[in-house]
């Protein structure tokens, strides 16, 4: 990586924190304060979340689980800055995301969040390399450096020999690894995975979860949204959501 010129501070855990930010106390990365999300369905208002508060520290491996309709997808969209809360505050990496406009949210998604989706969500017409470059393109990284970073990201997920393949030439597991490379290429603060193994067979799921484990050990903050207990069990902390509220918040390992 070529960011060596920029000052970073080493913490005792080996995680490099971003200095001088409000959330620096105790390395809190995400701070949710009494989060509400209300959908206006014509006559009635549907409260998808009613008052959710929690914190996530840098370097955590967190799973959010709950049955469908529990509000976990809504929560994921909020964490991923695809949506803003109706009420409450969301601080991500020292920034109050809940007050941001569309373009600022785009910037946060570009630089602070790496998405991994159940259905991969790769551009069908683009090569693996181009897919991985996409966040860098919108981040304004110039061509040569962009290729370099994307190649490195792909080799980190063992896809060095598949860079010029299009998604339909790749297996499900390979596609998900491309998606993971894309999520990580811009060095986001959080890796946000929504049912990342939902479309994969058991063996491939196992591989992908091992990759997440490795990424966690490398110091990445991972938030996993899933309804599968054995997948959630791979995380170190599990937040269970039910009816728009946190039912349980436990450190499991």
């Amino acid at each position, binding site marked *: *990586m070529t*960011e060596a010129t*920029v000052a*970073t501070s*080493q913490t005792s*855990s*080996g*995680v*490099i924190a*971003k200095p001088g*930010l409000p959330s620096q106390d105790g390395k809190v990365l995400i701070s949710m304060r009494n989060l509400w999300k209300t959908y206006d369905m014509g006559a009635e208002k549907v409260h998808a979340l009613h008052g959710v508060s929690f914190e996530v*520290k*840098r*370097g*955590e491996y967190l799973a959010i689980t709950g049955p469908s309709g529990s509000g976990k997808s809504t929560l994921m*969209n909020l964490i*991923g800055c*695809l*949506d803003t809360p109706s009420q409450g505050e969301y601080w991500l990496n020292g*920034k109050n995301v809940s007050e941001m406009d*569309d*373009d600022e949210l*785009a*910037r946060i*998604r*570009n*630089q*602070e969040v790496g*998405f991994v*989706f159940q259905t991969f*969500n790769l*551009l069908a*017409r683009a090569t693996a390399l181009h897919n991985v470059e*996409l*966040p*860098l*393109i*919108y*981040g*304004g*990284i*110039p*061509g040569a450096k*962009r290729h370099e970073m994307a190649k*490195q*990201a792909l*080799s*980190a997920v063992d896809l060095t020999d598949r860079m010029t393949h299009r998604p339909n030439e790749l297996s499900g597991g390979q596609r998900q690894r491309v998606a993971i490379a894309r999520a*990580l290429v*811009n*060095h*986001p*603060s959080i890796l946000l995975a929504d049912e990342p193994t939902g479309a994969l067979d058991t063996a491939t799921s196992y591989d992908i979860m091992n990759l997440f484990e490795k*990424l966690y*050990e*490398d*110091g*990445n903050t991972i938030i996993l949204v899933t309804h599968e207990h054995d997948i959630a069990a791979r995380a*170190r902390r599990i937040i269970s959501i039910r009816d728009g509220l946190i039912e349980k918040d436990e*450190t499991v390992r």
Partner: protein
Amino acid sequence: MSPRSDANPEATGFGRRTSLPGRIRSFPALRVAALWESFLVAAASLRQNKLRTGLTLVGIIVGVTAVISVVTIIKGLDQTVAQTFSSQGSTVFTISKRPRVITSREDFIKFNKRKDITEEDAEAIFRLCTNCWRTGVVANDGVTVKHGNQKADNVQVRAVAPTAMFDIDAVTVDIGRFWSESEGSSAHDVTVVGPDVIANLFPNQSPDRALGQEIWAGGRPYQIIGVLTALGKIFGVSRDNRIYIPFATYKKNFGLNISRGAFSASGVLVVFIQTPTAEQLEGAEDQVRAIMRNRRGKTGRDEDDGFAVESEDVFLNLYSSATANIYLVTIGVAAISLVVGGIVVMNIMLVSVTERTKEIGIRKAVGARQKDIRTQFLIEAVMVTAIGGVVGVLTGFGVAWLIALLIGFPLLFSIWSAVLGVSMSSIVGVISGLWPAWRAARLDPIEALRAE
């Protein structure tokens, strides 16, 4: 939190949190990378939908083709007109029964009721006009000319007197000679012939061989004594398909039933007057008009002249008003086809936005701003229409070239009309791309990701 496998501070392997603080990392306002991405995506999308792209473009192509061909043709004609008329200058005017151009049936009836221009009128002008330099009288007719079993159709006959008329017409002989004043006035059966007639009657022969030969026109033989220097075409009409004969000869052979003509029904007497300079033209016109009004007994100030006084200015004015009208019509045609074309492009762009909702969602999820999505679709719309513009310019040039070839005038392909065509269509692209691009940009990323 579980104990972590502590990272080597020096390690720069992928996935280590060695990234920069967000506020230091770049997120510039103008991103060449994103723009280039938009270009590539647009080009790929157009390539993938070749037929659709082609059909989308029809309206734009028609509009641009219309503008480019008309502009190119008229520019070419302008050049011809400028060369033909400014070289002579407008020092010549004519007195005739009716104007050369009649725009309504009422006028035609009115002009036909006028008295014919007579030899006496011409003589009066010769005698009385002090501002006139050269004067001549011409009986125009049309005829088929024959030699042996060769013939030339629709030959213009100009029966002229005196020989100064050759100077007024600005014609010269290439081979042979004009008739002398005495030959003319004593009605010799001689003729000076245009090169087109020679080419038709004496094919594959040197024009010299035609000298002294007889040609038949209106049932009478005429001896060729001269061949005219070629004048070329104007507006596709050859000025070399004519013969000159002496006025007295015409009168001797056919009498002067001027309103009907001898050879055909088109013989009309016209008096030609030339002044030394263009500045003196108006004075001479006034004088001749006074002489003629006097002869026609027109005293009332508001009364119609009863004859037409015309200089080449009349023709030039007519030409410029005609071209102005053609431009107007073209602008109308182009505007309609561009509006229709623009609507088609807008429709296709809306379809494209719907088809690519998922893609838009993905791009937004990884950090594309509204502006980026908007730009992407705008670029696609402009790219489509600019291609239409280029094709339109090329077909427009092609059409102009074909017409120029058929009519016979030189063409100037101007880079400016090409620029005009492409920028015009690009503007249509921007306008018709705005709404689809805005819709694409405003898509909710969550909804968009859920598409398909």
